[in-house]
């Protein structure tokens, strides 16, 4: 059975490289939903019972988290190198 698209979430282009990793995480956090990369950002299928504003925020947050994680990874590596050897 195909799930009709119910939510197309626009994500700023600067975040697009982070979307695939964010979707991987969203997929296991919300196994009842189907996430896919779209031209504008992310399409969520099967979200008929979800709060759209809440879902949009969750998707944005996961993309933000992925970007912050990538961007700050060298700082974390440096931290662990300095303090844990």
């Amino acid at each position, binding site marked *: 059975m195909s799930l009709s698209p119910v939510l197309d979430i626009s994500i700023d282009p600067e975040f697009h490289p982070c979307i695939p990793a964010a979707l991987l*995480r969203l997929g296991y956090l919300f196994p009842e939903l189907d996430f896919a990369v779209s031209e504008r950002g992310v399409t969520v299928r099967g979200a008929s019972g979800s709060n759209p504003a809440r879902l949009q925020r969750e998707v944005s947050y996961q993309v933000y*988290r992925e970007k*912050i994680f990538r961007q700050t990874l060298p700082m974390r590596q440096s931290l662990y190198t300095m303090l844990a050897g």
Partner: protein
Amino acid sequence: MQVWPLRFRDLDDRRTILADESGAYFLADSGFVKRYARDVLTPSDKKFLRDKGHAFEWEGDLAHTGFLTRWSRRQHVGGGAAYVILIPTLRCDLKCSYCQVSRAPFAAQGFDWDDETLQKVLGFLGGLPVEEIQIEFQGGEPFLRLDLLQAVAAFARRRFRRVRFVVCSNLQALGEDVLAFLKSEDVLISTSLDGPHQVHTRNRTGDDALTDIFLRNLEQVIGLVGLERISALPTIDMDDPPDPEDLIAAYEEFGFTSLYLRPVNYQGFARKSHPAARTSINWNDYYRGFVEALIARNARTGRVMEEYYLAHCLRRILATGVDGHTDLRNPNIPTGANAVIDFDGQIYPSDEARMLARIRQVDLSIGNVSDGLDQKKLAVLAPGHINNFDPDCIHCPYQPFCGTDPIDDLSRSGRIDVPRRESWFCQRHLAAFDLAMELIYSRDPAVEFSLSRWLGLENIPEQLSPVAP
């Protein structure tokens, strides 16, 4: 300026908690999160982050060094003191429905240390590379083998510079010899009080007369050693939980000012008699309701009762190095200095691990008193006891205050790689830390009354509740 990685989580629709890896936290709105993620922080955002220690100019400057110091103090590295749980007997004179250790009957044989095991336990303790130790006697009912407790105590007082004993007892039988043992200043007592008489009877004794005996004994022991050397905790049966007011009143009756709310542990006999304990889905609601009732009652009566675990979570948020509770620290690497020695001499990394072995789910023993520690097994277990690199925890603002419990994950899910949010440990602690943060940022006088007293402060300084511009 470089900003240390910030993790964030919505407290509600308007407020988001952000924290860095050193545990420094603040409240902001979602606009701040957007600006941070998009690298378009305003000058006032940057000033705030700099002032609060979330940023630095270059490696080695004061802000950078300060962060490293705070981060280091957040890590539990162990050493210094040992904490060992000893099970001299698995026999018990009660048959609690939720017994998590699958205790052995009172008259059973083969469930106590024999002389050889005792000597090997003493040898193991003697070989620990520490000068301070806390030894907790559990069971079964440890006082059924007072002679073994006395032998361990005599040895430990000679061997260690500082020693403290905790006896986890049901206090059903108090002979003169037990009372004499309890008189020593280095002996503490931990017991169970499940609430009003009828609740305690239903959960633990199954007999009104036995409950009467326990309550009389509890009063006698408090009179003997004082409240500072005895603690009690209720185990909550979520199929029929006590009314919070009744539970608090039962503790106040004995003069207790602290209680530690615990759900039935999904271990041992509880698996059959309390199957709902596996998910404990109502626990977080009950816990929040209890804390709210407690805070309201404290404000109403002017007396102060704390819920120990929430107070502990608050202290872990607000200070570094609060690692005294073995269930909540990180890393929590299993070592011989932090172990459980069972009635048969097997050594486990935690009490829950011995319970899993007891029901034959998985053997997580890390050695035995005859052959010593199994270093290979310790190495296998170690990575699961660190939350710093967990794919969920690395995005969680509560990671620096939290811990990890792979043994509980194994117990409930049969594996340790369940997504954090699906694990009972994570669900419980997200709820507890959310609640703690709500209390920290509350301006309700009733909340401030309880919070300040739990933390030993005259009032709650504004610095403890920073808010981004």
